């Protein structure tokens, strides 16, 4: 956060930010209360935001609590990251028509509106950057993803409170957003500090009547963000992780965690970076046309591991090992980074509360290596 770039907006004037976004043609989407959690929905006025609420998250449990304060961004996050806004859970890809001499195929493209995402967290922004690597990098640019992504304007809120499930500081994605946002906010009592991270963000800022932030306010923000980082449970031994996990292929812990894992897919659905999808063709009853659809899929399903007559990951143990090893080890080989941003959603939204930090720690403990593996190595 630079002294010259950062401005102050009283929280009471937060509506001016909404006005400015709406004036630029953005549909503003932010956290809203629904079904005893927060979910992304349209924000037309500041009171649509969960003002005066906080979330308490722990393995397998999510609860909201009213604080009675005027805090606007007191809820850290809900079950969904930014993933559905660019990588749609269900996307029609092609329309297929039977013709006199075969088939004609018409690609379908989404027509996304301009969306301003208000209240994203640094871990969410980092997750979106990882998804960009997957869907936009190299020769295989994904057109539906690209068109949705181009229409997103991201307003991140730096975190001053960590949940028991948060470990962004270990993954170096938070609690302060470094890049990948258009605007960054830090909420301090009754003011919002705002800085721009893009030209589009600057354009919004110039429309707002704000004063520069004082040194004292910036210091206060830094202190709270640093305290948030300090309060987190750490995921240990980041440097040794990829190789240590490969070495733990035959660790007994995989059997233990498989006895608890439901293979229900929830961790992968809420993960900001999981990108697995399936494609299905649906013919119409008259046989004259059909549609090809892409759907979110998961490496925890039976069919995901089914390849030409054999299931290569038949057991829950195979699937959990595949998921965790990919996330923390193979992702480095594949994309040059970790596949985890430390948002903790897989911990909270696991119906039986499996904590990936505990699993990694147990897998790194050498006493669980099976004798078979050791004696098998030359």
């Amino acid at each position: 956060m630079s002294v010259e770039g950062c401005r102050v907006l009283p929280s009471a004037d937060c509506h001016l930010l909404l006005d400015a976004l709406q004036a630029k043609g953005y549909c503003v989407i932010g956290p809203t209360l629904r079904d005893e959690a927060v979910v992304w929905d349209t924000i037309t006025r500041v009171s649509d935001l969960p003002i005066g609420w906080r979330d308490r998250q722990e393995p397998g449990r999510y609860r909201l609590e009213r604080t009675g304060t005027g805090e606007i961004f007191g809820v850290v996050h809900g079950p969904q990251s930014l993933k559905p806004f660019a990588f749609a859970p269900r996307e029609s890809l092609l329309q297929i028509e039977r013709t006199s001499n075969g088939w004609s195929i018409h690609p379908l493209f989404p027509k996304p509106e301009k969306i301003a995402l208000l209240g994203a967290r640094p871990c969410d922004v980092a997750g979106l950057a990882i998804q960009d690597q997957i869907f936009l990098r190299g020769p295989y640019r994904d057109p539906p993803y690209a068109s949705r992504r181009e229409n997103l304007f991201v307003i991140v809120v730096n975190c001053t409170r960590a949940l028991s499930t948060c470990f962004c500081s270990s993954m170096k994605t938070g609690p302060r957003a470094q890049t990948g946002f258009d605007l960054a906010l830090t909420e301090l009592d009754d003011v919002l500090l705002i800085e721009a991270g893009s030209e589009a963000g600057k354009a919004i800022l110039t429309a707002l009547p704000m004063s520069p932030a004082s040194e004292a306010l910036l210091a206060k923000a830094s202190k709270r963000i640093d305290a948030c980082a300090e309060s987190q449970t750490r995921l240990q031994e980041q440097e040794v992780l990829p190789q240590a996990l490969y070495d733990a292929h035959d660790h007994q812990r995989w059997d233990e965690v498989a006895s608890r894992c439901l293979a229900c897919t929830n961790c992968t659905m809420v993960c900001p970076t999981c990108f697995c999808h399936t494609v299905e063709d649906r013919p119409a009853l008259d046989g004259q046309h059909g549609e090809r659809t892409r759907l979110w899929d998961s490496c925890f399903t039976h069919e995901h591991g089914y390849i030409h007559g054999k299931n290569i990951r038949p057991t829950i143990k195979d699937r959990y090992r595949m998921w965790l090893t990919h996330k923390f080890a193979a992702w480095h080989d594949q994309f040059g980074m970790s596949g985890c941003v430390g948002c903790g959603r897989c911990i909270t939204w696991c119906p039986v509360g499996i904590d990936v930090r505990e699993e990694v720690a147990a897998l790194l403990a050498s006493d669980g290596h099976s004798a078979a593996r050791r004696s098998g190595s030359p």
Partner: protein
Amino acid sequence: MSFVEGQRKPRLGVFKFASCDGCQLSVLNLEDELLLLGAALDIAYFPEASSRMEPGPYDLALVEGSITTEEDEHRIKAVREQAKVLMTIGACATAGGIQALRNWADIGSYKQCVYPRPDFIRTLATSTSIADHVKVDYELRGCPIDKDQLLRVVTDLLAGVRPRIPADSVCLECKRRGNVCVVVAKGMPCLGPVTSGGCGAICPSMGRDCYGCFGPAEGMAKGVGYPPNTASLAKQFHDRLGLIPIDVVRRFRGINGAAASFRRESEAWAVKRTNSEGS
């Protein structure tokens, strides 16, 4: 697979055993597509819908209901002999249905409770799935079945491709819909994590917990599927969501209580219940 030879329309037969007819009604509820379905198939036998009842053979037999009488035992064999492809529809046909609760009870006392003249009732002591008696080619789960899934399978058969009947967990469909998990946010004992989807996560979408009407999520209908991890979910219900053992038994012993993995789980907790009462 070529469904039928030449230009002939495939002949459909719809058969009922012990059931409430709700799954057959799901066929009739295909309002917008019913005429198309009638154009694509020769509906030769469907007493719920039409008094025209043509004899077999049938290219596709849809079978609703479970086997609860000696007559049923013979009749399902006759249906099988006349059917090229036999697909069971609904929880009764695929797992014995709610009436399989008799499998844990004394049928004599049930008869005494329900009927003024129990001596008129001839019935088996158990309710069993169609697959316990004859070879079943495909299964559509649910109480009732999902009409779009039925349409999808019929369309696939007509197109000559292997029907796609996903048996992934309800959670996958729930999260695709953007629902908030009722287990995590509300502490409800939802069976979604171990139950097959296909319903579109209809109950959690209405804020209630899944009660397993699509039966255990066991991987693909064809090929080896592993049973879902009911033990871990049941333990969570008991240890963290506060269900006492008899509640856990009842949770698993519902519409699909006789489906193998749900049956094993409820029986395991019935033992725990007895043990805890004894101590």
